[in-house]
């Protein structure tokens, strides 16, 4: 879809210094949006900056026809986005891209690095927690960041949350993959695995790579949401590819915007040399 949608809310949440914003958009796109997909948003009317900005769908309200997005103020594009006010109109393309598998039963392990939590929010929302137990490992810089990225929402969501921070200001001091390593070594893991454990992750590339290694070594099916610089957002420019290994062992490209952003971790070639 290619639409002008109305802004319902667009404001800084949490600690202002963290620069995290919540953007709520009204529109039919909510009717068809799936967890893991993204919107491609035009942040200005001029040609500088030129390109749209891809932002993950973090919340979908099909009844109210609302989509929620969280974004971090990074450069000029996200800065321009903060200028949009309630009732302004934004040009979006989307929902775009592939979606997370939504398990209907068993256990779901989520691993998030930093703002990689945002697309996972939509997955959590889509899960029937009566039927699927969700475990979340989330690593961030510090407690301020985690609070700003809506830790409270998570705590209230009934999800079983484990936290790590780089500075130790909340939870484990260190990497989120430390938590993951710990978890897979834990004996209770066996119980989880027997209960159809699947997992999904989003975060920086290095963290995803480490996560994939641990999960694959432990036979935990993993889906990852990748990020890549994008121009068209719909598969036409070949700007955003990742490298995958096909079933036949040959190396291929896939487009993060079209075949992704969600991929099965086992097909991703993390350190492609081409």
């Amino acid at each position, binding site marked *: 879809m290619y639409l002008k949608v109305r802004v319902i809310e667009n404001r800084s949440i949490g600690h202002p210094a963290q620069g995290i914003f919540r953007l709520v958009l009204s529109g039919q796109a909510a009717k068809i949006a799936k967890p893991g997909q993204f919107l491609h948003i035009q942040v200005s009317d001029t040609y500088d900056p030129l390109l749209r900005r891809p932002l993950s769908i973090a919340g979908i309200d099909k009844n109210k026809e609302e989509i929620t997005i969280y974004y971090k103020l990074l450069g000029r594009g996200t800065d321009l986005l903060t200028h949009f006010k309630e009732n302004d109109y934004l040009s979006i393309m989307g929902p775009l891209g592939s979606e997370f598998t939504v398990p209907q039963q068993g256990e779901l392990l989520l691993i998030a690095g930093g703002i990689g939590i945002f697309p996972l929010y939509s997955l959590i929302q889509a899960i029937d927690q009566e039927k699927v137990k969700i475990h979340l490992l989330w690593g961030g810089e510090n407690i301020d960041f985690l609070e700003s990225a809506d830790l409270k929402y998570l705590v209230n969501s009934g999800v079983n949350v484990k936290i790590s921070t780089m500075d130790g200001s909340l939870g484990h001091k260190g990497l989120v993959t430390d938590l993951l390593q710990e978890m897979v070594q834990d004996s209770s893991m066996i119980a989880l695995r027997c209960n159809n454990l699947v997992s999904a992750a989003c975060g920086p590339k290095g963290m995803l790579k480490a996560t994939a290694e641990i999960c694959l070594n432990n036979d935990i099916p993993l889906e990852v949401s990748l990020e890549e*610089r994008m121009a068209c957002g719909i*598969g036409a420019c070949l700007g955003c590819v990742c490298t995958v290994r096909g079933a036949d062992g040959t190396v291929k490209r896939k487009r993060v915007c079209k075949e992704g952003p969600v991929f099965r971790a086992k097909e991703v070639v993390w350190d492609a040399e081409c």
Partner: protein
Amino acid sequence: MRNVDMRTELGELILRNPVVTSSGTYGFGEEYAPYCPVSILGGITVKGITPLPRLGNPVPRLAETPSGLLNSVGLENPGLVEFRNSYLPKLALLDTAVIVNISGFSPDDYTLLASSFQKKDTGIAALEVNISCPNIKHGGMAFGTNPRSAEEVIEAVKKNTDLPVIAKLSPNVTDIVEMAKAVESGGADIISLINTLLGMSIDIQTQKPLLANKMGGLSGPAVRPVAVRMVYQVYEAVGLPIVGMGGISTWQDAVEFMLAGASAVSIGTVNFVNPLAPVDILNGIEEYCLKKGYRSVREIVGLAHE
């Protein structure tokens, strides 16, 4: 009261209107289908095809610049065979002129590619010969910046296909007119320009080039003045019809290129921002002709010249 004749003549290539989309920015015609009906367009140009499949360059392949975009896709494409088998049949069904863009690393590559596309291949309206892609380390760039080899390549193509041959020129040259004359001598039927300007962007945090391939091709509104200049110069010096491109984003830009001498305009980077741009541009050109009292869009071609 739509009574402007929008047909465009590029030698024997007749398009129903002068708006086409640019190679590498429009996939294989299906990607933008949900956003922009191709049946409205004069034509589409598909991603550059090479004899063998190519993975292209590593990522990052894109960097945004002021009013511009750097790309170093590096000619990722499924290769000739796969293109003919899997893509061409679908392209043949599209209700628009399909221009196939070809790229090679040697005159033999071009000979092979050219001989693989003929008039009898339904669905192909013309071949666009990319001698100008700046992303290939060997060959590609040289053909596009050396008049002698440009002529040779076009000759090779022309000899091996009966389709109209469009020579696509690189702007990374001292004298665009010399290049245009060379491809004219080579037998080109049509000239398209410009391909991307060679550029670079450096990440000041990592202190490394932003593109994995270091350099890339600059496109988008930023390059428009250079493109208009080159279209103007080539129109003055060479008799071949021109497909103008480089930063066209609005109908005003498109009219600017036509006044400079382009018989058709090709829409690239702006699609990424506004997928309806080709339609807006088409309507705008028609409106302009109506307001100014032209019966045919062909009347405005080259009007900026004395």
